Structure formats: structure tokens, C-alpha cells
């Protein structure tokens, strides 16, 4: 719980800058890279912000139980301390439950009060922490109580001097007195809870590696490689056979990953681009087990005798030697490659790579089938996938 408080405090302190309406946006410079949507502080404001943070850390050091290793979790906050944040002018705002000369002198004995302002608030940080902790204890996404299960997160807002309760509900419902009464009766009777409606719960950002398991309705298969479609959208390539249709939802475990575009299962292609619709999945070129990265923007056409490095969810990492580069499968996919690594059901769509070096290899294709009699991997060539689907290797 202490670690949660640490993360929340740090995040809230840094983000509190953005909660205060700004009338001084000219202080921010637009990043020169047009693909990056970030505002950059001017040097002057950055310096002021750095000074404010140094003072904040001096306070934490002063109150810390262990001055050698200060974290916000091992700090003994004074009962009159309400919190602190950096305002838009990059002043350190120190919140206190009462303000008089003795309070100012106290803080003045610890830090330089230049660019420091004081704000009187109703609740001390210790009171906010206690209320926050009580709600955290109740959080349970699997609760049979609908309200409890809809708690998406709990935070502390210093500028509002409140506990922030994030609930999966509509904005309209969150504003009703009935809902507020429900929160009071079932979650917390703390007087200053700010209810924030949210469309979804917090989710960790996860990589979807080539070779990892993906599922669609009734089937499991493997992710091939990350790619971009003609619109620049990110997604993964896998092998649909005849069991994925356009518009099908593709999952990773119980989480939606994306939506299938037009599948191709004829000629020399058994491939589909699955557009990522869940930004909680991040693209990666890294393949664990092999410990190499796929090289961006390129592919390779391997000759007979070349070594292949494949990964699928059923058989994991396998290496093999190419035995045929002009193979037509008994289910009529032509211009395929057979390599002497074995495979099994579930490996469909899994990555096949080759060339490069032990740390960086090129996409050679994705697995489509198992050769009768040998159980060798049959893969469709990357060149055919790329030209038919109009994608580029991420």
C-alpha cells in the first residue's frame, strides 16, 4: 500500500501543474518533431520547477525516518501539512491546515521560502492518506457489489485537497446525489471525495511479442510480426486460414487486442493484418527465448540451406534448415517454404526469422502449416505477405 501511495503522490504532484488553468501558455515551446505531441518548458520555467522540486525533496528529507533513503512512504508528515504541488508559475505551493507566523517560520527553517506560497486547506495529508487507504482496502474488481467492482482507481488531489475516486460509470450518473450517497454509504464517508467517472479501469501496458498467443472465436494461434498498414496504423500479422473473417475481434488472453482486416488465404498468402485497437498493447520487435530483435522496415528471402528461427505459442522457439523454397501445400497455398523445425497446432501465424546476427534478424515469414509426414514448418514468405496486404514491417 505504501508503494501505491508513493506512486500516487509523485504522479499527483507532477500532474498538478496541468490541473491549474494556465494563462501563460507562451512559456511552452512546441516540440520540433511534428510526430510528437509534447510541450516543452522554457529554460526559465524549467529552472524554477527544478528549484521547487529541490525544496519539496528537502521537506521530505527533513521528515524522513531514514535520511539515507528517502521515499514518500517512509516520511512522517506533520499533522498540519496538507500537501504540496507546483503551480503554473512554478512556485511551490505548501498546503497547511492553519497558517500563522509559526508555521511560516517552521518551513523557513527547512527551506528557502523564495517562490514558495502557502495555502490553507481543510484536511491534512495524513487525513487524506487514511481515507485513501480505507478505500484501497475495499477495492475488489471481482466483488459481487456492483459499486465496489466498478472502482477503477483511487488517488489524492492536492489542489482539491480531496481523495479522488475513479469509478467506471457515466459522467451523468457520477454527478447524481443518489450516486454520491451510494459512495458515502458503501465506500467511504470521508467528507471530501471527488468522484471521477471513467470509461475503463487502469490497465498495464504490455508488449505483444512475435510468437505470443492470440485468440479469436474458438481458436488460438500465434502473433507473427508487428506491421503498419497503408494508413500507418499499427497491428500484427497472423495466419487466418479460413477461420478469421474481416472484422473479427482478436484477443490476448481476456483482453481485446484488435480487429482483423481483410484476410487472405489463397494464392501464395495465408495472412491477415490485425489492427491494434487497444493502445495498452505496445509494439515490440523483441522475441524472448531467442533474445533478438526483428530489424525494422525490412524482410529477407532465404535460400535453401539457410537457418530459420521461429517461434509459435505451441512449440516455442525452434531453429531449422530450409529444405524447399517452392512448396505448394496440400491446401493449395503456393510459393511456400519448408524448414526442418517441427511445429504443432497453435503455431499458426508464428514468426519465422533469419539472417542478420544473433541480436538482430529479419522477418522471413509466418507459419501456415505442418508438412504431412515430417511435421516440418511450412511458412508463407514475407515478400508475398507485404505485397498482398500492403503493409510494412514495424
Amino acid at each position, binding site marked *: 500500500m505504501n508503494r501505491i501511495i508513493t506512486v500516487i503522490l509523485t504522479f499527483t504532484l507532477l500532474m498538478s501543474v496541468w490541473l491549474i488553468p494556465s494563462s501563460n501558455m507562451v512559456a511552452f515551446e512546441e516540440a520540433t518533431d511534428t510526430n510528437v505531441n509534447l510541450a516543452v518548458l522554457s529554460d526559465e520555467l524549467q529552472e524554477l520547477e527544478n528549484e521547487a522540486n529541490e525544496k519539496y525533496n528537502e521537506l521530505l528529507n527533513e521528515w524522513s525516518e531514514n535520511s539515507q533513503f528517502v521515499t514518500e512512504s517512509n516520511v512522517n508528515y506533520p499533522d498540519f501539512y496538507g500537501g504540496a504541488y507546483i503551480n503554473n508559475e512554478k512556485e511551490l505551493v505548501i498546503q497547511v491546515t492553519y497558517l500563522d507566523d509559526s508555521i511560516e517560520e517552521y518551513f523557513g527553517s527547512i527551506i528557502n521560502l523564495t517562490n514558495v506560497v502557502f495555502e490553507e486547506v481543510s484536511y491534512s495529508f495524513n487525513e487524506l492518506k487514511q481515507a485513501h487507504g480505507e478505500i484501497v482496502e475495499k477495492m475488489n474488481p471481482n466483488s459481487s457489489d456492483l459499486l465496489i467492482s466498478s472502482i477503477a482507481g483511487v488517488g489524492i488531489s492536492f489542489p482539491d485537497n480531496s481523495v479522488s475516486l475513479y469509478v467506471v460509470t457515466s459522467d451523468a450518473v457520477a454527478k447524481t446525489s443518489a450516486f454520491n450517497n451510494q459512495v458515502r454509504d458503501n465506500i467511504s464517508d470521508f467528507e471530501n471525495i471527488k468522484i471521477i467517472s471513467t470509461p475503463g479501469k487502469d490497465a498495464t501496458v504490455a508488449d505483444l511479442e512475435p510468437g505470443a498467443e492470440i*485468440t479469436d472465436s*474458438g*481458436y*488460438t*494461434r500465434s502473433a507473427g510480426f508487428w506491421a503498419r498498414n497503408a494508413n500507418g496504423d499499427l497491428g500484427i500479422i497472423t*495466419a487466418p*486460414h479460413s*477461420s478469421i473473417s474481416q472484422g473479427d475481434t482478436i484477443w490476448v488472453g481476456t483482453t481485446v487486442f484488435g480487429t482483423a482486416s481483410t484476410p487472405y488465404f489463397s494464392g501464395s498468402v*495465408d495472412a491477415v493484418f490485425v489492427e491494434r485497437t487497444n493502445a495498452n498493447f505496445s509494439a515490440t520487435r523483441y522475441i524472448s527465448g531467442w533474445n533478438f530483435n526483428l530489424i525494422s522496415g525490412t524482410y529477407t528471402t532465404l535460400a535453401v540451406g539457410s537457418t530459420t528461427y521461429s517461434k*509459435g505459442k*505451441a512449440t516455442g522457439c525452434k531453429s531449422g534448415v530450409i529444405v524447399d523454397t517452392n512448396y505448394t*501445400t*496440400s*491446401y493449395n497455398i503456393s510459393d511456400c517454404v519448408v524448414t526442418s523445425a517441427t*511445429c*504443432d*497446432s*497453435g*503455431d*499458426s*501465424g*508464428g514468426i519465422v526469422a533469419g539472417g542478420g546476427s544473433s541480436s538482430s534478424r529479419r522477418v522471413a515469414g509466418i*507459419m*501456415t*502449416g*505442418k*508438412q*504431412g*509426414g515430417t511435421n516440418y514448418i*511450412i511458412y508463407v514468405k514475407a515478400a508475398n505477405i507485404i505485397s498482398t496486404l500492403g503493409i510494412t514491417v514495424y
Partner: protein
Amino acid sequence: MLHRLLILTALAVLTVFSSGCGAKEDYPWGVHKSDIAVAAGQEVGVKMQEGSLTKTGAEFIVFNSGEEDIYLGVEFFLQIYDGGDWCDIEGNAVDWTLEQMFITPGGEASQVVSWDNMYGELPEGRYRFVKSVAIGDSNEHYACEFEIKD
């Protein structure tokens, strides 16, 4: 010595002609006695969709009345009942796509199959369609019997 050798030879010939699996019938492919154990198929099993059977294919339904998810690929094989034994049929090797089906408890999944590439048109006989199914850490074979009549 020669007398004993003749008796042994005669016994060997009799053994060959009296064993099952290919000894009495003329099949378009080789057969041999199978050592694959097929599970009873009560909670998990295979049944045929009524009316779907032809000499070159059929629709089969794998059902799961058990308590765990089951997993299976598209691969299958046929066996023929001959001479009192179930026998593997030595058909043509074919390639298989690599998707894996999963069936949750209470569910079922159908698979329309054609064995034309593997065995051609089946001659008259008693057959069974066999699937390998993974349940937890174990693999079992489940089968559905059918008959081909001329």
C-alpha cells in the same frame, strides 16, 4: 530336423493368413494393427452430423461435457476395423494448417473434413474418425465410428 522346420514354416504361414488387418481384404492402401488407444468418449467425444457422410468426407462434431477446456488441431486420421482389430490406414501424407481449436465446458465445435487427398474414396467397411484432444496436461484420442456401404 527337416520335419520340424516344415512344421514351423506351416505354422508361420497359417499365422500370417489368420491375423487381422489386411489379411482378408483387398484395400487400395496398406493397413496395420493400431496401437493407439482410443478413449471411451463420455464427457468428451466425437459424433457425426447426421446426413453428412459421403465416401470422401463428412462433418464431425467434437463435444465437451467435461469441466475443463479442451484443445485440438485440425488434424485427423481414419482407422478401419478388420480381422477383429482397429487398423491404421496407410494413406497419403497431407499438410495441416496450424490453428488450434478450443472448446469450453458445455461447448462443441464442428469440423467439415474431406479425406479424398488422404485415402481417396473409401471402400465398403467399418471405419472410425479419430482426433487427438488435449485436456490439461494429457492427450487422448477420441473417435466416431461410421460405416461405408457400396
